[in-house]
């Protein structure tokens, strides 16, 4: 069952990278980077999954109930925060590029040739 989820993770990575390579708009490129990051979330939660187990919150269930892996979920949380903040930084850069050059097409900004 989880092989489907793992396959989705691989697909997301590749399709996100494809979007970045063929992008014609910087915001689209940033979102494709987020898609690549999303593939790691799917990968992490698929790795932590146990069939028939419940969430690792033992507020009203006993400690012996089988629960999914809590460590990968904590890693995912850190991952999400990192992604959101990096995206914010990149979007701020994109807003400024639009203001300076009037374009957001990554193929048209030509300053770094050579």
């Amino acid at each position, binding site marked *: 069952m989880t092989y489907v989820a793992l396959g989705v*993770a691989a697909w997301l990575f590749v399709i996100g990278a494809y979007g970045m390579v063929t992008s014609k708009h910087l915001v689209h490129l940033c979102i494709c*980077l987020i898609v690549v990051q999303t593939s790691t979330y799917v990968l992490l939660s698929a790795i932590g999954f146990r069939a028939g187990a419940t969430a690792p919150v033992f507020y009203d269930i006993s400690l012996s109930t089988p629960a999914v892996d809590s460590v*990968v979920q904590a890693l995912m949380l*850190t991952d999400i925060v*990192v992604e959101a903040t*990096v995206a914010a930084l990149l979007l701020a*850069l994109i807003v400024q590029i639009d203001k*300076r050059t009037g374009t957001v097409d*990554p193929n048209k*900004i030509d300053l770094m040739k050579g």
Partner: protein
Amino acid sequence: MHFAPFPVVIPLLAAALLTALSGILPRRLIDLIACLTSASVLVVCCYFVHVTERTPIVYWFGGWAPVHGFPIGISFVIDTMGAGLAAFVSLLVLGAFVFSWYYFESIKSLYHALMLVFLAGMCGLALTGDLFNLFVWFELMSAAGVALCGYKSEETGPLQGAINFGVTNTLGAYLSLTGIAILYSQTQALNMAQVGASLASKNPGNVFVLIAFIFIASGFMVKAAAFPFHFWLADAHAVAPTPVCILFSGVMVELGLYAVARIYWTVFAGALEPYAATVRQLFLIIGVLTALVGGVGCFSQRHLKRLLAFSTISHMGVMTIGFGLLDAGALAGSALYVLGHGMVKAALFICAGILLNRFQSVDEFELQGVGKRAKWTGILMLIGAIGLAGVPTFGNFFGESKIEDALDDLGLSWLDTVIMISGILTAGAVLRVWARVFMGWGERRPDQAAGAPKIPMQRETEGQPDRTPWTMWTPAFCLLALSVGIALSTPLRQSIESAAHHMQDVGGYQTLVLQGRVQFKSVPAAEEHFPSFWRELLTAAIAAALAAWALFPGTLGTAGDAAVRVFCAPLRPFRAIHSGRIGDYVAWFIFGIAAYGGFLLLRAA
């Protein structure tokens, strides 16, 4: 032992403090606090270097020591190599703060906060013993680096450089995280020692281990500017402010290589024992390609900062060769190379910053001859160029000779030529710039102005065009003086040699972290002899000849012109590939990972 969190926590706290009080404090006090913080981190890290000579320090955060030998918390494993790197990081950050003292426009105290957090991230990367912790500090470094790179956002150049930097490094980091997750599924651990022990004992098959290795190493190789992941480095350096360039070239990219080395030895060395030859071949290929691409790129640039960036790429290739030999002597050579190269490169970037401050340009042809008014800067640049060539006792010399000794021992002497070519091209380029700018030599061609790069040059400082402030040239002078003298000290060389042996001692590392027992292999006493230096002198001589020929191309007549045409023919596609387009960089990244991974699998499976 108690001081273990200091290098990371104190800069973070200082950054938060500076941001909270940014409206109130005067600029000088902010500078002072920043300098004091980095100086204190330097002192603590030097103390660590001294204390961890025999035994690394293992510090468990939150007091979460291993439960029945299974680690459940995060640890710092501070050994001499890591502590030495952290000390070097803080030294360069201190130099950068002195350079930007008072003359660098800072928006309240945000520049200082960014630099301090950058320092904390780099120290964390050097000292950690946990895979996910490594990823977190890596991302912290990248975020702070992107913000610092795009700092001067009035111009478009920094913005494009910062985006290229941010996107490529983040993409690499997430592939690394994919690798870490894949490893976790097999070993159920995140502590490096635990993962290494688990991989070695379970042996999930060479295909799995090799793929996990290439995934995890990829993000750090992007940071280390290995070919074909090196494109972002030139863009970022061309536009970042000078104190930031000092850090990028001096120590940030080297930390990428350090992370690959650390991961290889603590996590993968046991499981990849039978395939060490293939891994060695892979890193030698990467190193050679990087060194050559960087060298060619360096010599063909006229933008001074971009030229220095390509030279960093080339030297990173040499360091990768040193690591790739998987030998303790070569690793010690790489460490010495990091020290020497970092100091020399930092000093050269400071010279570029001084030129920018006084003459508002970093284009080689625009600056032709104007350097006569800045003689002392010229002398610093000349010494830097000699250091890049590895002339005896300067800069790269000791590191380079150790790597070459190891190459000779392993029967790979032909790679010495690659190292020589890298030195020739990079030192030749800097010598050419020195001669043109500070001596006014070189033919002036009418088409010079037409070839100027479009990257606009922005003022970084409230400049004083008549003289260079002492806060600017003092760090350069000190760093160069250190680079000349530091490797002459035999205790330092021995300390680095034993640090390299400890880094490779996988069993000792795992026993110390997981069981708390000290059981390191004894370090063989190194024979002390002054390395032979005829190769380095030859490099310097050929570099000078190359620079002279570049300055006066007509002197060799028609044969010279024909040689120029042959040499420059591959340059046009070379420069076309370095297009500055982010889509290209991503395509090269994916292709590079697939190629290297395919190489590993086909040779080892």
